[in-house]
């Protein structure tokens, strides 16, 4: 550990998931532990073998406890990950190999375990197919568990992080993200990771504040040291002083009061003060999130990101597993639409699932629907599962990254053909409702034509903004140019809404803009029919809308569409919302809009 001169140190990273958290640091055991290698005397060999066997037993018990604590359903990818780790620990052949090596080399168990697992992980990492390469993560995961048991450890494993603690790690593996449960870990700090990695997506969707890309975080932070994490600004304050804590407590108190007010609107339908109905749906990643979303007041599922079913390390789920996952989501919302997006991989999206060839420019590569059509076997298995889960008539199929009508037509043809086959096989299949994500400029320009062939649109603002403005927001040098208030983005949104409404179809928005201020106000002003946000934002979004008039937002949106520059839009927004004291603005590189319904 680095020796720090001052107790209070501020570390800068990237704000990956908003919110503040104060809690003791919990250091996640490092994957690259130094393992001592030493020879043991002949009479010590039996002891090393006993140590190894005990470590295996303890690791198994640890997984069983974790599995129970997380309460995962069998179709959950997380459960499959843990099941595969258990199988590795039960592998007799592997145990035999390790015991034989301990005997033959008269070496300590930890060194042999380390070498055996590392060799296997390394071999898997050299394979061409990404599916098999991804298995290396599981091997290392189990290795780490065993070594932690064999060596004693300085840090802990994710499943052991106490509620309210702030986890500090080099990086977080897919299996570790599962420990992000409500009322669990208070915040996350990682040295690695990107704004689009699975850690970021899950942290945001669970409302866990996170700061990523913090250099040397593990070397700087001491276990148990108090940390104040600010996910909005990307800051980590180690050993905060009284002033830091006082300000944090003020923020918390305000948030609590707001939460109390927000809870009152939870069960009401989303609408503006002057009565324009805007249903608020939820974005989810796992089937069991659907039930939680319903309890949070969601009026449907606006986006189920199915790539998390295909999470790295768990392999590809079969048709039956997928069907039961989609049915679970459909069941949670018998009266409203559940929108399920077909596998969206490529670009920056959750890697490590499928054999993705290296691309020079993945953002302009084999992504979304292009990938689905290129891998019809995988796509068809998913479509079959979606259609089999569609008997209630509320399942909508959402196609990602459509950039031309030809893709939509081909996907539709495959879907209809599959529906026909399923009916022949005797399954009850509803007429599929097929919509597309609007996230590529070509789809915006063609939105009027696409709307005539689609059943609904869903705007994916994150990608749309990136593609409209040619800005990779993960690139720190230009990230400040990523701004949903840019008039070019607003015009794209406007054209999309008009295209949809011209053909009589509904258009929702499921990107981050839908849950952010002032973005969501402009979306409503532009005429969006539905907003879909992370479950923890559903009630808050309803409360925000209940305090404003759609007529004002429409007027504001029209004015902004006439602006020439993003700076003008910001000024128009500040001026246009002046009559609403609940909105407070902070101008810096961009425009931050805070909402405090208690402002007199």
């Amino acid at each position: 550990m680095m020796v720090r001169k001052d107790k209070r140190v501020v570390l800068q990273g990237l704000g990956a998931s908003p919110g503040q958290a104060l809690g003791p640091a919990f250091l996640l055991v490092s994957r690259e532990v130094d393992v001592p290698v030493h020879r043991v005397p002949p009479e010590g060999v039996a002891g090393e073998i006993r140590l190894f066997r005990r470590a295996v037993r303890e690791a198994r018990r640890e997984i069983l406890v974790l599995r129970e604590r997380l309460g995962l359903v069998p179709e959950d990818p997380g459960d499959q990950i843990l099941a595969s780790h258990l199988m590795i620990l039960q592998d007799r052949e592997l145990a035999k190999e390790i015991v034989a090596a301990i005997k033959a080399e008269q070496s300590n168990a930890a060194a042999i375990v380390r070498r055996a697992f590392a060799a296997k992980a390394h071999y898997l990492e050299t394979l061409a197919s990404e599916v098999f390469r991804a298995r290396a993560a599981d091997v290392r995961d189990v290795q780490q568990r065993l070594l932690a048991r064999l060596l004693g450890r300085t840090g802990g494993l994710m499943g052991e992080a106490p509620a309210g603690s702030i986890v500090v790690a080099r990086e977080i593996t897919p299996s570790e993200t599962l420990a992000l449960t409500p009322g669990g870990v208070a915040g996350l700090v990682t040295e690695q990771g990107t704004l689009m990695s699975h850690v970021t997506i899950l942290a945001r969707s669970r409302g866990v504040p996170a700061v990523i890309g913090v250099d040397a975080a593990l070397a700087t932070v001491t276990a148990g040291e108090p940390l104040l994490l600010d996910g909005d600004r990307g800051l980590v304050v180690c050993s905060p002083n009284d002033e830091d804590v006082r300000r944090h407590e003020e923020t918390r108190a305000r948030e609590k009061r707001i939460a109390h007010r927000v809870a009152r609107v939870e069960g009401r339908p989303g609408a503006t003060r002057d009565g324009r109905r805007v249903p608020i749906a939820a974005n989810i990643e796992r089937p069991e999130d659907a039930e939680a979303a319903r309890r949070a007041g969601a009026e449907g599922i606006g986006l189920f990101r199915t790539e998390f079913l295909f999470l790295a390390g768990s392999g590809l789920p079969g048709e039956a597993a997928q069907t039961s996952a989609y049915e679970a989501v459909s069941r949670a919302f018998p009266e409203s639409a559940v929108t399920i997006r077909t596998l969206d991989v490529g670009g920056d999206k959750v890697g490590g699932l499928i054999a993705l060839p290296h691309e020079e420019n993945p953002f302009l590569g084999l992504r979304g629907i292009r990938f689905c059509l290129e891998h019809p076997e995988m796509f068809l298995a998913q479509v079959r599962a979606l259609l089999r889960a569609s008997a209630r008539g509320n399942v909508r199929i959402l196609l990602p990254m459509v950039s031309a009508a030809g893709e939509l037509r081909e996907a539709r043809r495959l879907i209809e053909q599959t529906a026909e086959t399923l009916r022949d096989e005797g399954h009850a299949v509803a007429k599929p409702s097929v919509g597309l994500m609007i996230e590529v400029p070509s789809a915006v320009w063609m939105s009027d034509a696409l709307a005539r062939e689609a059943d609904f649109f869903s705007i994916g603002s994150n990608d749309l903004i990136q593609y409209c403005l040619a800005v990779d927001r993960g690139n720190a040098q230009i990230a400040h140019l990523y701004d949903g208030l840019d008039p070019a983005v607003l015009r794209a949104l406007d054209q999309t809404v008009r295209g949809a409404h011209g053909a009589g179809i509904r258009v929702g928005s499921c990107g981050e803009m839908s849950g952010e201020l002032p973005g969501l106000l402009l979306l409503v002003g532009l005429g969006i029919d539905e907003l879909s946000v992370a479950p923890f934002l559903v009630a808050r979004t309803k409360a925000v809308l209940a305090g404003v008039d759609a007529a004002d937002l429409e007027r504001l949106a029209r004015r902004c569409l006439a602006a020439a520059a993003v700076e003008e839009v910001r000024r128009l927004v500040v001026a246009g919302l002046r009559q609403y004291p609940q909105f407070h603005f902070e101008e810096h590189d961009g425009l931050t809009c805070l909402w405090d319904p208690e402002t007199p």
Partner: protein
Amino acid sequence: MTRGGRRVYETTVTVRNVPGIHARPAAELVKKASLFKCQIQIGTDRLMVNAKSIMGVMMLAAETGTVLVIRATGPDERAAAEALKGLIEARFGE
């Protein structure tokens, strides 16, 4: 066929599911193999592994189109080899 006085049964099968024997199929294969008493080796001329070892089957990394040899030695050798062949041919129910 017998080898060293023990009965050996050998058959081949082509992996058909996409993208191959990845996580879930590997687990299913091992579970099925473990139901039998005999020793079962599976693999190619490059690498043969114990079909009851998840780590072994993972190392095999058998992709779609791979032709696998299944070699079972012991009491229920024929049933075991055919059961694994059937599972692989049925694309693990995917």
